[in-house]
């Protein structure tokens, strides 16, 4: 089946120009993968230093100003240059066209432009950090960030502004691709859930990011021109900034989690050899999360001075938005019922995701309860909550997808023993890092504090110990993935026994993805007593 001399997208041309000027969605995905790995590393160093600093109640590493710049850097890099792009630009770019039977995205050159915008924005922000950084927090609240903060606010904000265009164009490309480039027979309800999830994510990317662009522009105008649009000196309203900022930033967290959920919806059926339970519900829950997610931003502002009636409405809607996520969790578990479950690395990460996302989501319900939120907002309770979702959820989903599609992308298999070990290590390290933070939060430990009352130290020490374990769990894949490229056994077209279109073509795929455009004859995830039924009609 696999002829070593045939061209793959990797071997077709090998010079640097063919990579930097490529319009092949698969190569662009790898370009993005290099970028997000680099930024994850930078954000991770910041996290390591933060956890190291917090081992002692007083200053450990440096001045308060140094610490403030550290957590700002960690937030900005991780949110905009790692989490938001992570799955859509790597797995979305690589796998989505193949999943729908297309030869590329709708606008390949726009795709490459998106990568350059992302890297430019990232490098501008890195420049701001190298020059000395900024200490506003990733949330840039006014009037601190415009009239009081020293540091490279303008440069960093500009970097984020540029990268925002990458988000918008990528989302646009995906939406148009899914509408227009589906293979014959690939109706909407035959699309894999990963496609639906990426589609829902793209709607958010396209509609929410421009609001961030305008908000950042107004922030820049204020800082550069020294006029108080949001500052009280001229009568401006600092809370208006918060409304505009969170109108984007809450949907942004759904940009970070929806693709991960899509990955889990792919992995669980394969490693249970069973169709996804409740396909239609899972699909429409993705759309519902995207839609309702635009209506809950005020839950970041319950103590900000927002009107009482607004707070009541936002609390109610925040409970509503949790319902579709809960439905998905039940559906994933129900998929496993009466399945043939295998525990390869992707499935271990999926198990981890389901457990940790559930914990994170339930603590979100606690935060949505107005009276409780008054106590725990702006404390480590919130920090723990969003790390459970972002790291325990989104990053675990990223690793699940990475380990699931690695054979397809690289054409090699990795050693499963080490992969499972890394997954388990990361799971335990993660919980040790972040569970104590829930306790710290209810105790009253505020966020963004370098120094803290000594009685809180024990929880911080445990948390930092967990972080060191988590770091090992994240570092291990570098080694065994590198090994797999150099010496790993070659992968067949469908090493996992999955059913999607991407598994009907070679690993790694040829430049044009499919020798012949496939014709889709059945829905996704069809298994007959544990045996996969391929989606396309003309595949052996």
């Amino acid at each position: 089946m696999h002829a070593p001399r045939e061209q793959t997208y990797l071997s077709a041309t090998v010079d640097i120009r063919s990579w930097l000027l490529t319009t092949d969605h698969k190569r662009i995905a790898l370009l993005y993968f290099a970028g997000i790995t680099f930024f994850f590393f930078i954000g991770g160093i910041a996290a390591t230093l933060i956890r190291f600093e917090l081992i002692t109640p007083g200053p450990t590493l440096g001045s308060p100003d140094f610490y403030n710049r550290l957590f700002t850097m960690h937030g900005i890099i991780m949110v905009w240059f790692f989490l938001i792009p992570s799955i859509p630009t790597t797995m979305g770019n690589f796998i989505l066209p193949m999943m729908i039977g297309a030869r590329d995205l709708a606008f390949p050159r726009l795709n490459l432009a998106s990568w350059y915008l992302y890297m430019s924005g990232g490098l501008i922000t890195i420049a701001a950090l190298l020059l000395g950084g900024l200490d506003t927090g990733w949330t840039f609240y006014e009037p601190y960030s415009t009239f009081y903060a020293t540091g490279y606010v303008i440069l960093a904000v500009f970097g984020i502004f540029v990268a925002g265009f990458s988000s918008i164009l990528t989302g646009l490309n995906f939406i148009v691709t899914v509408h227009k480039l589906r293979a014959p027979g690939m109706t909407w309800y035959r699309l894999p859930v990963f496609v639906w999830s990426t589609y829902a994510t793209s709607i958010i990317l396209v509609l929410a990011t421009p609001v961030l662009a305008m908000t950042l522009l107004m922030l820049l105008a204020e800082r550069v021109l020294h006029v108080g649009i949001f500052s009280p000196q001229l009568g401006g309203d600092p809370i208006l900034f918060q409304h505009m900022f969170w109108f984007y930033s809450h949907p942004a967290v759904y940009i970070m989690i929806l693709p991960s959920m899509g990955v889990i919806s792919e992995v669980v059926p394969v490693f249970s050899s069973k169709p996804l339970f409740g396909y239609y519900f899972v699909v429409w829950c993705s759309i519902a999360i995207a839609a309702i997610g635009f209506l809950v931003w005020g839950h970041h502002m319950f103590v900000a001075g927002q009107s009482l009636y607004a707070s009541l409405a936002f609390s109610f809607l925040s409970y509503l938005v949790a319902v579709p996520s809960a439905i998905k969790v039940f559906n994933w578990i129900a998929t496993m019922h009466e399945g043939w479950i295998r525990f390869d690395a992707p499935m271990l990460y999926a198990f981890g995701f389901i457990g940790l996302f559930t914990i994170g989501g339930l603590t979100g319900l606690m935060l949505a309860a107005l009276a409780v939120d008054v106590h725990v907002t702006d404390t480590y309770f919130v920090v723990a909550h969003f790390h459970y979702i972002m790291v325990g959820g989104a990053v675990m989903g990223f690793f699940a997808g990475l380990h699931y599609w690695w054979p397809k992308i690289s054409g090699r298999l990795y050693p499963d023993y080490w992969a499972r070990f890394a997954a388990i290590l990361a799971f335990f390290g993660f919980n040790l890092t972040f569970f104590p933070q829930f306790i710290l939060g209810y105790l009253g430990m505020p966020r963004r504090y370098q120094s803290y009352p000594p009685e809180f130290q024990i929880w911080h020490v445990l948390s930092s110990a967990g972080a060191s374990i988590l770091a090992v769990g994240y570092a291990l894949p570098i080694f065994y993935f590198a090994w797999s490229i150099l010496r790993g056994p070659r992968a067949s077209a469908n090493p996992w026994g999955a059913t999607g279109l991407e598994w009907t073509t070679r690993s790694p795929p040829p430049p044009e993805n499919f020798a012949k455009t496939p014709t889709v004859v059945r829905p996704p995830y069809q298994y007959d007593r544990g045996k996969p039924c391929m989606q396309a009609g003309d595949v052996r």
Partner: protein
Amino acid sequence: MPAFPWWPPTASAYASQINFLFVSLLVIAGLTIGLVFYLLLFFANKYRHGSNADRSGTTKKTWRFEVSWTVATLLIFVGLAGWGADIYLKLYNPPADALQIFIVGKQWMWKAQHPGGQREINALHVPAGQDVRLVMASQDVIHSFFIPALRIKQDVVPGRYETMWFRADKVGRYHLFCAEYCGTDHAHMGGWITVMNPREYADWLQAQGGQQTLAAQGEQLFRRYGCSGCHEPGGTVRAPNLHGVFGGPVPLSDGSVVIADERYVRDSILDPKAQVAAGYAPVMPTFEGQVSEDDLAKLVAYIEFIGPTTSGGR
């Protein structure tokens, strides 16, 4: 101090209600997580590849499961939202007879002014069993006044007054934190709330030394800033007499009516053209940039003092 602190002190009845709600949420979350973990582990074991469990495919009617767990989830969630909102609403209904203390947050300290003129920095002494109402302002950026033991927190936003009230029941010393990032020394902008039994509180007030009450200081400022020139009878410019105004309705020139609370007084001083009293010309100059937050608090206290006596200290 225990080696593993699990729980913050609970210093008020309101804090107890929060504890109860939080623990209930914890229990519900715990049961849900327990169910999820149990099912995951149970299925992982029973249906692992190679096991001889029965897989005859009895789960065909998917939509019944879907609808039932959707509806159940929805009902529980709406109930929880309501419960949280119900307790939250209590924060918005301060009692009429509260002891009013002015708080000013600035980089990087909290200043408190008691009605008798006593001042504190990074500390707040209050009597137990007494309603306390805080009127808070920021001199520069957004801060947040956070007392974990009372389970209350309020962002303090520059350009406006925010209020918060509580009734501490348990005597003791509790953390005060700033909970909204505000710059370099954000982590050091805190101190202690000391709740004392009423007799000790009275002694403490005495011990601060003789000073004028906040309202008396406010009266002096009222003259010094020239307010009395227009607002007292016999003034050259026709301006509303402020005696008996505080706490009552004020008709405005655009036809609407507002209640003269501390926000109204503050806004009238800093931005008089925004809300002009009906029947008066908009000639009052603005004092933006001239009056500090501390002085504003004293002026407000004075205007409140000369308000209608029947409504008490609002």
